[in-house]
């Protein structure tokens, strides 16, 4: 391989039809295993809207990959008929980074839960955001550990009674939006699974963002934390406040202030700036390095290094 690089992979052997003729995949084609989530779980809505996104944007199965960690939400890739990965607890983001950096031809979607992304995977959340790796992360936040049957999560509110906090949670909860903004994420949004149109709009915006896009999606756990998000659901007597139209999404401080609003707070894109992605910067390093080698084959390049070691 002398011409193909990670920055510029070989074109696929089968030509993809031009997008005008291309048909979006239907839900029937995209649905794989029957979801194992509990009836009423908010995650169903996210899955359905992911199908809708793929259909609407006419993504074929050789153009995207879905990756997850561990948790209820992270069963996600099994339910999608596409190349998918169910990785280990907390580490979906570095795995997804490996794919994103080495395969710029693929859309990389990562799905995670609040424990997976902010607790065990907190470090990776920080570093994937600061590196601005091109991918979309949807965290289905239910503020509780569901798969392991009701323990406190990093987003559980103070006083939340769980099996690990019988006297009520005493640790200050993480505000994922503030955290993401502070860490240098370039796209930070919030939505709730009870508002399908809004979820789809956020996913589309995230997919179009050139960089690390993060969506916090409130997704109720009907088994272990019923009613957690009622205050944000108009059908349950709550209010769904969209981010004010005059909010400047490039204003970090304003975004931070909006993100600090007490629950139910605001929904929409809090922060969005353009900063070169890690993908672009690595690709630039490769392009510059290869410009100097003047079409030499790999073995000739290696020979040069060996000459210096004689």
């Amino acid at each position, binding site marked *: 391989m002398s011409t193909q690089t990670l920055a510029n992979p070989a074109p696929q052997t089968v030509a993809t039809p031009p997008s005008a003729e291309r048909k979006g995949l239907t839900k029937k*084609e995209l649905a794989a295993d029957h979801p194992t989530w509990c009836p009423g779980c908010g995650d169903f809505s996210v899955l359905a809207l992911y199908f809708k996104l793929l259909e609407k944007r006419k993504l074929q199965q050789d153009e995207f990959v879905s990756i997850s960690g561990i948790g209820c939400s992270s069963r996600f890739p099994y339910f999608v008929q596409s190349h998918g990965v169910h990785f*280990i607890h907390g580490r979906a983001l570095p795995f997804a980074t490996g794919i994103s*950096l080495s*395969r710029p031809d693929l859309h990389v979607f990562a799905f995670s839960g609040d424990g997976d992304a902010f607790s065990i995977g907190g470090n990776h959340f920080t570093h994937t955001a600061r590196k601005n790796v091109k991918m979309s992360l949807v965290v289905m936040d239910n503020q509780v550990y569901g798969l392991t049957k009701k323990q406190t999560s990093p987003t559980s509110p103070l006083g939340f009674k769980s099996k690990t906090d019988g006297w009520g949670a005493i640790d200050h909860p993480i505000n994922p939006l503030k955290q993401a903004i502070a860490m240098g994420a370039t796209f930070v949004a919030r939505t709730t699974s009870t508002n399908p149109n809004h979820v789809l709009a956020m996913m589309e915006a995230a997919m179009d963002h050139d960089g690390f896009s993060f969506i916090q999606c409130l997704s109720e756990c009907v088994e272990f934390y019923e009613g957690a998000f009622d205050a944000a659901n108009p059908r349950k007597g709550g209010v769904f406040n969209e981010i004010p139209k005059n909010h400047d999404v490039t204003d970090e401080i304003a975004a931070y202030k909006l993100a600090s609003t007490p629950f139910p707070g605001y929904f929409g894109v809090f922060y969005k700036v353009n900063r070169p992605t890690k993908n672009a910067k690595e690709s630039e390093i490769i392009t510059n390095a290869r410009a100097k*080698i003047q079409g030499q084959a790999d*073995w000739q390049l290696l020979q040069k290094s060996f000459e210096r070691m*004689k």
Partner: protein
Amino acid sequence: MSATTTTASSQGGTPKVSKISEAVIRIAGNSQDGIQAIGGFLARLAGRSEQEVMTFMTIPATISGGPSIFQVRIGSGEVLSAGDEADVLLAFYQHSYEGHLASLRKGGIVLFDADHVVPKPEWEKDYRHVPVKISSLTIEAIGGTAKDKGKNIFALGLIARMFDLNTAKLEKLIGERFGGKDESVLKNALAAFHAGYGYSMGNLTDLFQFSEAQQKGQPQVVMNGNEALAFGLIAAGVRFGAGYPITPWSDIMEILRRELPKYGGMFIQCEDEIASAAMALGASYAGRVAVTGSSGPGIALKMECIGWGIMSETPLVVVDIQRGGPSTGMPTNVEQSDLNIATYGSHGDAPRVVLAPANVEDCFYTAIEAVNIANKYHVPVFILSDQAIATRIEAFPEPDLKKVCQDIAPDLSPVPDYKPYDLTAVDGTSRRVVPGTRILSGKYPVATGLEHDEYGHPSGSPKMHLQMTARRRKKLQSLASTFAAPKVYGPPEGNVLLVGWGSTQGPLREAVDRSRAAGDSVSSLNIRHISPLPNGLEDIFSGFNHVIVVEMNDEGLYGYGQLAAILRARFCDPKIRAVNKTDGLTYKVKEIIERVKTVIAAPAKA
């Protein structure tokens, strides 16, 4: 220093010149004195003179300063170890002199900086003392402001004179090393070198000359094990790596970060060890084989990811440059104590491949073998190197790069159907289908750590776990059947077989040579496929009365080191016994011979 002939006699001040076939030179100073640079020059010169060379160094595990040594053994014949005793000790300080004189053979030469070292009269009769005011003479040669800089190059000049080394080649090496810097740096270096070379060493009238190299005509490259490993990975087609800094693995990530972009690849420094294993797995899943690496503690952190690689059948190369453990242990010392974690680490039944390169040259070829196995059998493969090979410099025949360089880019052409975990294909050598590939049946696989069906969808059925566990095992059994039995060094039958792995190969072979010269029936065997083991070992063992596994790790709770325990478990043979050590230093040949004698004198326990 084995003298072969004496060609000239001392006459009218003309020094006597002895032809020698090899020499061990130990340089002792502090870590900022540039002693590695002298050693490196000597090693590189030997390589360019078609001589064999092996080096050994210790550096302190401190941030700056501290005593440090560099030992270089140069030979016209095969050099198998860095040498038990030095022929020449170059001592810069009193502590270098007092701390290392014991490593000098009786009658050997101690060349010392008379500005810093006061010789001990009681030692002067046992060793030949050559005082040179190295520090002040260097300042005199290159100017008053030079302080301690350049004294290493002055000393190199002294050694060049003593061993009648090729000055033109050395000047060229100095030029290559300092040529990129400010002009005055090279000028000063050459001035220091010539001052040292021209210095009359008073009472040392003997000079030495290496006899003609045996390997004449074959181009050689000179590098350390970490360099050989890094370039081996590149030759193998690795184009993505991820890691986190740790001694002694960091050099490899530094080389790959610098080199891979030229080949269209990249190396990512991650936030931690776990992320680097995860990221490398992600890149491997997405296409070609990726690499991650570390040393002991970092490998422990990667283990959950590696278990996922085994379960999901994702290729990966994991480089472990072993150092003293457990925990942070002895970061700059050698030990071979990660064999167990490499072989058995991760939870559950998690079979994987473990390879151990035997020397610097083998680091290059093992890297290629590891990538090929990972790619063919869809499994994580460990390369167990160690601090001793990682940092030692050896000369070896230049590989035929046009032949060995390979491309392992994925095939993205569509497939009719794809079962990544096909139960009928137990050897795992089917085409691996990566994302971006169209699967015409419309049934897409999931790469997963959960027990799964043939498409990767979760299945916890007792039958499926049984079948899949067997599948993961069987493909490695199938791999094992392709491994040829290792070759015995020395006669294939006899009294004692010394078994080793990794960097002890050379010292064990030298122990065989010395023992046989002394009339003892000793052979040795290096095992480089640690897991799975190659076939045919029992036949080899049956030819010997004693099988002694020599390794640099503790004897363990039951009296066997790590490889010895694996071999005993595999062969249930009480004649397999062990010689172990954990002082963080490489084996001396005489240490092996003495300790093996003690073991075989003791009765074997069943």
